C-alpha cells in the first residue's frame, strides 16, 4: 500500500514518501521515529558452544551481558516513578541475579552456548515462579523479559520491547502486545505507527486509551530507519516522510484543536437537543475516577476481567466487592453497567479458560465459561450485588457472548437470584442481533460490542493485519446487524435501551451513524468523550438518520466511511 506523495497528501513541492494505512486514533503530529526491535529469536534448541570458544570465556561474556542489562535497567529506573520504577528496579536485580547466572554458567560448563544457557536457565526459573502462583507467577514474565534482553546484549542487537529515549518519539513497529502497555510511557511516545494489526488490534486500543495518534496496517513503515522525521495523521491513516510546510501547519493546528476539545460538559446531545448519554468504558476504580473527571455520564462497560487478569485462581467475593465498589463510588446517582467476566480468546484467565482450544474466538469464552466452570458466575453476581448494596450508583449487569434468548433468560434468572434488578446482555454474536426481540423479552437492555460483532459478522480475526479492511465496524453488514438489534427492541415493545460499548462509539463519525440507527447511549474510552460530543452536537436527529441510511446502503466500508465523513465538515475542521 506504499504510494508516492501527492496521492494522499496535497500538492506539496516537497517530495516525501507517504505510507497509507488505517487511521485508528486521531491526531496530527510530527516527530522522529524509533523502531520497535523485533522480538528476540530463540537460540536453537541444544545449541552448543562454538568451536574454539572456551566455556570460561562464554561464561565471562554472559556475566558481562547480565551486568550490562542490569546497569541499563537501573539507569532507566532512576528516570521512572511510582509502580514503573519499582518494576524496573526489581527487573534490574533479576538481570544479574546470582541464582540465574550460576544456573546458566553451569549449562555453559556442560557445553551449551551462552545464549542457549541463559535461555534455558531463565525458563526453569520462570516455571518455578509460575508454579508458585499469584504475585510470583506474574514475575515470571519479568524473568523472560530479562532473558530476552541478555540474549540481545550477547548478540549485540537492540534490546526487545519499547525503545528507550530521553526525547519524545514516534514508535514504529509491527504490532504492540498487551504487555507493551505497561512499558509505554505516554510522556515519551508521540504517536504509534504499525505495519500490521487492524483497527481492533491492541495497538489501536492502547492508542485510543492513551489519546495518542495512531496508524495501523501501514505496510512498509517498519523499513524506515531510526530518527526519520515523519508526519502522522491518525484520522486519515497516513504517514509522510520528510514533512513539508503544509504538514507543519496541520500539526500546529492540531495542538490548538486538542486544547479546545479537552472539555466535555457532561451532557451528550445533538444539535436539536436529542439526548445521547455518553458513558465511559473502564477497567477498574482508577479508570472510573478519570472517566468521572472527564465528564462521563456513567459507565457503559465495566470490564471486570481487567481486575483479575494474570490471576491463577478465582478472586474471592471480598476482593471482587472491593474492586467493584471503587467504580460504583466514582459515579454516585449514575448508571454503571457491569459486564461479568469476559475471559477467553485474547483474554485468557487460567482458572476459567482452556488455552488449548484450536479456535479460541469460537470457543468457551464470555458467558459460555459458565457451562464448563459453573459457580464462578453466581459468585461474581453475588459480589456485584454486595458491592451495589449501600452505593448510590445505579448498578446494571450484563453477560458477554450471549447467542440465544434461552441464554439471556438463564442469565436473567441468575441475576434475579442474586437480587440484581437490571439484567442485560451484550450483542456480539450475530445470532443475538438477529433475535434481539426474543432476547429483550427476558432482559432489560442490550449493549452492542462492535469489536466482536464485526469479527464474527465478517469472519475475520480482529488481530490479523491482512484482514484489517474487513475488520471495521463501518462494514455495511455490521451496521445492518445494529439496525436489526434496534428494530428488535422496537418489536419487543417496551422501548428497552440499546447501547454501544465497542470501539465504534469512540469514532465521532460512526457515533453519528449509530445514533441515526437508533442507538440510545454510547460508551467509549474517556479520551474520546469530548470529540464525540463535539461532532454529535453538529447534527440533528433527522440528519443523523440520513447519514445512517447512506452508510447502510454503501457498497463497502470505505465508501460508507467516506460518504458519511463528506457530510460532516466539522471533522475536517477539528482534524478528527
Amino acid at each position, binding site marked *: 500500500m506504499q504510494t508516492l506523495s501527492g496521492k494522499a497528501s496535497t500538492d506539496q513541492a516537497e517530495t516525501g514518501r507517504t505510507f497509507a494505512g488505517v487511521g485508528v486514533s486521531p491526531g496530527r503530529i510530527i516527530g522522529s521515529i524509533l523502531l520497535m526491535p523485533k522480538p528476540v529469536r530463540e537460540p536453537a534448541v541444544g545449541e552448543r558452544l562454538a568451536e574454539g570458544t572456551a566455556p570460561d570465556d562464554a561464561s565471562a561474556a554472559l556475566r558481562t551481558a547480565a551486568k550490562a542489562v542490569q546497569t541499563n535497567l537501573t539507569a532507566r529506573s532512576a528516570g521512572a516513578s511510582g509502580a514503573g520504577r519499582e518494576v524496573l528496579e*526489581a527487573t534490574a536485580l533479576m538481570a544479574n541475579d546470582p541464582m540465574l547466572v550460576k544456573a546458566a554458567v553451569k549449562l555453559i560448563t556442560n557445553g551449551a552456548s551462552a545464549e542457549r544457557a541463559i535461555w534455558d536457565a531463565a525458563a526453569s526459573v520462570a516455571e518455578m515462579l509460575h508454579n508458585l502462583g499469584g504475585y510470583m507467577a506474574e514475575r515470571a514474565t519479568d524473568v523472560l523479559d530479562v532473558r530476552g534482553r541478555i540474549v540481545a546484549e550477547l548478540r549485540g542487537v537492540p534490546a526487545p520491547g519499547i525503545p528507550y529515549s530521553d526525547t519524545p518519539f514516534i514508535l514504529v513497529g509491527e504490532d504492540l502486545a498487551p504487555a507493551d502497555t505497561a512499558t509505554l510511557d505516554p510522556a515519551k511516545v508521540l504517536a504509534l505507527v504499525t505495519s500490521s494489526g487492524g483497527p481492533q488490534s491492541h495497538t489501536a486500543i492502547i492508542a485510543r486509551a492513551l489519546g495518542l495518534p495512531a496508524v495501523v496496517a501501514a505496510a512498509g513503515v517498519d523499513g524506515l530507519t531510526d530518527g526519520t522525521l515523519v508526519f502522522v495523521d491518525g484520522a486519515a491513516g497516513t504517514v509522510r516522510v520528510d514533512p513539508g510546510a503544509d504538514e507543519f501547519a496541520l500539526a500546529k493546528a492540531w495542538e490548538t484543536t486538542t486544547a479546545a476539545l479537552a472539555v466535555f460538559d457532561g451532557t451528550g446531545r445533538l444539535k436539536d437537543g436529542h439526548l445521547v448519554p455518553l458513558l465511559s468504558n473502564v477497567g477498574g476504580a482508577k479508570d472510573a475516577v478519570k472517566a468521572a473527571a472527564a465528564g462521563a455520564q456513567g459507565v457503559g462497560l465495566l470490564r471486570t476481567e481487567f481486575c483479575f487478569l494474570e490471576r491463577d485462581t478465582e478472586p474471592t467475593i471480598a476482593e471482587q466487592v472491593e474492586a467493584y465498589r471503587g467504580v460504583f463510588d466514582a459515579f454516585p446517582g449514575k448508571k454503571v453497567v457491569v459486564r461479568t467476566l469476559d475471559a477467553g480468546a485474547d483474554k485468557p484467565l487460567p482458572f476459567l479458560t482452556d488455552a488449548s482450544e484450536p479456535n479460541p474466538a469460537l470457543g468457551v469464552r464470555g458467558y459460555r465459561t459458565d457451562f464448563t466452570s459453573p459457580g464462578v458466575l453466581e459468585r461474581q453476581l453475588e459480589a456485584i450485588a454486595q458491592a451495589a448494596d449501600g452505593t448510590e450508583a445505579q448498578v446494571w449487569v450484563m453477560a458477554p457472548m450471549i447467542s440465544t434468548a434461552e441464554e439471556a433468560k438463564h442469565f436473567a434468572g441468575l441475576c434475579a437470584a442474586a437480587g440484581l434488578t437490571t439484567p442485560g446482555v451484550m450483542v456480539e454474536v450475530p445470532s443475538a442481533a438477529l433475535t434481539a426481540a426474543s432476547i429483550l423479552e427476558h432482559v432489560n437492555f442490550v449493549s452492542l460490542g462492535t469489536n466482536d460483532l464485526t469479527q464474527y459478522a465478517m469472519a475475520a480475526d480482529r488481530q490479523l493485519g491482512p484482514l484489517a479492511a474487513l475488520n471495521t465496524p463501518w462494514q455495511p453488514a455490521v451496521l445492518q446487524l445494529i439496525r436489526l438489534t434496534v428494530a428488535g427492541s422496537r418489536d419487543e415493545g417496551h422501548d428497552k435501551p440499546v447501547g454501544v460499548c465497542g470501539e465504534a462509539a469512540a469514532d465521532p463519525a460512526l457515533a453519528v451513524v449509530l445514533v441515526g440507527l437508533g442507538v440510545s447511549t454510547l460508551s467509549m474510552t474517556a479520551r474520546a468523550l469530548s470529540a464525540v460530543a463535539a461532532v454529535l452536537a453538529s447534527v440533528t436527529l433527522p440528519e443523523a438518520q440520513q447519514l445512517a441510511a447512506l452508510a447502510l446502503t454503501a457498497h463497502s466500508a470505505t465508501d460508507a466511511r467516506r460518504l458519511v465523513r463528506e457530510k460532516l465538515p466539522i471533522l475536517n475542521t477539528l482534524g478528527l
Partner: protein
Amino acid sequence: MSERTAVIASRVGLHARPAGIFVAAVGELPLEVTIALAGEPAEDAMDASSILSIMSLGASNGDTVVLRADGEGADEALDSLVKILETDLDAE
C-alpha cells in the same frame, strides 16, 4: 557460623520492594549470606543475594526466617539485615 532469626515485618511479605531493598543490602556485604524459613535444614538455605531465590522462598508477613553467614564481621552484618527484615518496608 553466625546465625540470626528475624520475623518478616512487611505486610506484603518478603517480595516486591522489601525483597529488593534486602537483596541490595546483602549485595553490599563482603560475605556470603544464606536465608531459609525457620525449621528448614541449613543445607536447603538459599543465596540471600539472589532476588529470585528470595522470591521463591515465599516468606509472608509474620514468618520467621533464619540468616546465616561465615567470616569476619558476620555478626554485625546479620544484625543489620535482621533490622531490615523486621521493619515494615512497605509502609515507608
